[in-house]
């Protein structure tokens, strides 16, 4: 399987996302923001970072990148896409996912290993987990509080589109403890915590995050088999 990792100006965790792809047994394909070309990949990761410095609303400029012009229709047609942190913000700005990410409740950047609960274990990126499974994954963001209108939040919960929640109080004030959500098809997933930083206990708090990457690889192999 070939999984594309997009580098925007200011992307920071692109090398980490690529490493996680390799750990999951797939090939990581670098994608460049300025190219209207997905290079025929089978899935795409929008990594963490500060695209364009995030001097405007986070992700607001990146969504207009040439590569996004290719990605948005492909995602709507079923290409699995995972947005991590800044990638989640970009997916919301691109309206592939509803809602927005706002300043942390404490107004400070937070780096912390946070316990998460898997709420939906049937998406393209979480099918390797059990529903209700607990994960320990780093959170590192200044604008990570998920926000949406009550109707949208009700709809997300009713349709099972909340993918992961903070176990216990959300450290950033996220609405209803939401850490990550998916689109209606369950192929586009966005989350604030960083599963790519939890693939090896040597460099992360656990290897709990690896499941996001093995999920998509396993599902792809199954579909082909």
């Amino acid at each position, binding site marked *: 399987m070939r999984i594309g990792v997009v580098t925007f100006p200011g992307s920071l965790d692109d090398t980490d996302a690529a490493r996680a792809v390799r750990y999951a047994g797939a090939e990581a394909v670098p994608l460049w923001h300025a190219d209207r070309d997905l290079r025929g990949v089978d899935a795409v990761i929008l990594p963490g970072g500060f695209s364009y410095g995030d001097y405007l609303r986070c992700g607001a400029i990146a969504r207009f990148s040439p590569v996004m012009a290719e990605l948005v229709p492909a995602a709507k047609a079923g290409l699995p896409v995972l947005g991590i942190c800044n990638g989640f913000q970009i997916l919301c700005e691109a309206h592939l996912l509803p809602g927005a990410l706002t300043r942390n409740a404490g107004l400070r950047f937070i780096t912390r290993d946070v316990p998460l609960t898997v709420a939906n274990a049937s998406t393209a990126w979480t099918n390797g987990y059990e529903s209700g499974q607990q994960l320990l994954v780093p959170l*590192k963001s200044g604008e990570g509080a998920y926000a949406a209108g009550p109707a949208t939040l009700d709809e997300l919960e009713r349709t099972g589109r909340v993918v992961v929640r903070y176990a216990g109080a959300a450290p950033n004030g996220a609405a209803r403890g939401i850490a990550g959500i998916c689109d209606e098809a369950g192929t586009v997933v966005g989350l604030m915590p960083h599963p790519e930083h939890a693939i090896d206990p040597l460099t992360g708090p656990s290897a709990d995050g690896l499941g996001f990457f093995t999920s998509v690889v396993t599902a792809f192999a199954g579909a082909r088999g």
Partner: protein
Amino acid sequence: MSDKDTVEVAAATPEQPQPFEELGLTKDEYAKIRDILGRRPTAAELALYSVMWSEHCSYKSSKVHLRRLAPNEEQSGQLLAGIGANAGVVDIGQGYAVTFKIESHNHPSFVEPHQGAATGVGGIVRDILAMGARPVAVMDALRFGPADAHDTARVLPGVVSGISFYGNCLGLPNIGGELAFDPCYAGNPLINALCVGVMRHADLQAAVASGPGNKVVLFGSRTGPDGVGGASVLASATFGGDGDGRARAKRPSVQVGDPFLEKLLVECCLELYASGLIEGIQDLGAAGIACATTELAAGGDGGMRVTLDDVPLRDPSLTPAEILMSESQERMMAVVRPDNIEAFLRVCAKWDVEATVIGEVTGDGTLTMTWRGGTVVQIPPRTAADGPVYQRPMARPADLDALQAAAPGGLDRPKDGPALRAAVLALLGSADEADKSWVTAQYDHYVRGNTVLAMPEDGGLLRIDERTQLGIALATDGNGRYCRLDPYQGTQLALSEAYRNVAMTGASPVAVTNCLNFGSPEDPAVMWQLAEAVRGLADACAALGIPVTGGNVSLYNQTGTNAIHPTPVIGVLGVHDDVRRRLAAGFTEDAAQVVLLGETREEFGGSAWAHVTHGHLGGHPPAADLDAERRLADLMSAAAQESLLSSAHDLSTGGLSIALAESCIRGGRGCRVRLPGDPFTDLFSESAARAVVSVTPGREAEFAALCAANEIPATVLGTTGGQTLAVEATFEVSLDELRRVWQGTLPALFS
């Protein structure tokens, strides 16, 4: 008139008064410039010399002492580039080289904490980048006034938010550092930033302009009026002005950082290096274009001709002097062969980095700059780059004898279990010893995915090679109170602690960087402290067999006549052969033997206990024992390789009491210990060359034999387990209470 002050005009108007004193030059220095040039300098030349000969750029007061730090044969074995380069470069094996350096941004951070600290990170990162390395991590050593002082509530959160803003956006993991408080830093906080970079040997870049005909390219941010300190003087009425000098808006003297642009600049430079498109490179930091052009030209074999009209400006009204002095951030200067220019500009365009050819290398040995058709600079570049050297008067501080005589022996000591328990908790909850998460949680230590250890561990540890598991460890340490009592010994203790912290991860220390924070060099007592500190560092490095690879000197850290404590901050780099065998501070398993390594003496001068419980500073600091430090490091490295230990934590301020409490909290596991001697001395002494470890169950005899072989005294204290820190026959504290006391302090002060 200043904008038309050409070389010809200067030669024709020798009597024209010039504001050299406002620019920080002495009468003698000004006379020397006139002597070098054979005429009065132009306004632009005066600006250039004034910044190049400033204390910050020229090290004119410290240079005579810093010569002591030149490495001897044993020390220079692994050095690929040493002091004098932008940063020293060390061979760490497997074809990798590491460059690291620590630098101060003290004064800007006091004036404007957020941007001052942010641009401090940016500046040191460009130093590392200029050597050809990819920057891979940063650390910050921070010192403030009393934690509960009104102004600390302004400075500390601003500094931390600035480091968080810049470092996180730049994508460099922040893997450690220090946070300390003392009244002596109230008006002079110390903001020291360290950056480390990694490259292959072949990637090493040089800061030289050679090859006549080669182009000089300025790339990155545009040049603006920010950070132009003294240059406004040049545009002032007393110097004639150019009509708008008086009307010009006052600009902030602290620069504003753009970490996003710096990230692009990093990736752009690395691609330029990889493509072989650069002959020489220099970052722009203090003194901006003035410094970059003179240093490149002085380092090369010829001269340089620069057209200042071609410098891209944010403000078109800048005078030549202002263009030269501007400290606008995120700029680099490269020397490029003409046939590579097109490819060079293409790489810059890919990364949206503006790049402009502003001049070329010449063979005439002169740095020449033109502006609007006239020649405004024409100097021998080495005369500006080398600067004056002063042998400042020195004198042992008049109060030092009295200070050393006021030994802590007479202080009232806790005598029974409850009193000792209270003293441990008071120390653990003191701002210096308390949990630093309020600060470090604002820094990203995960980015790039190679962080094996980060704060609050003794040293940061990074994986360098995923295949071979080669890694590097880093730690910074300093102790102003020790140095106030004895700068020679105090500096050796700072080095010893950083060295020991690196060793605690299982790494072998290989190189040293330093940031020397002192008061005014015009005070003979301060100069004596500086000289003693450098002498102590030089002697200690020779004893440990590791070189100083570079550093930075920050003087004038004083308010009125009150200088800070002399505060050399020492960074040590270590090499770890296999990061999977790293050691960390927390007790990780039950029923492991807890062993104290090293010798405990009654040493309380400058101790945390004396400071926290009595507000006392006097006597002599603990004795440094470099031979013991070296043997302890050898022991730790061997024990890590053999997997004999399940935890390791060095003893420093607060002694055994703090080390045990931290190992318990960090591992979520208690311990039961029996103290071998006087409980007060055992708990709070700050004797150097010590550590507390827990031994892998079943490997006790092997470890004891290894200690004996390395001649390190090993005292079995007890075993790990339970949920209390229990000191037999003395006191017990639950982990919950330890945690509550340790974690509560900083949030209560700053949230």
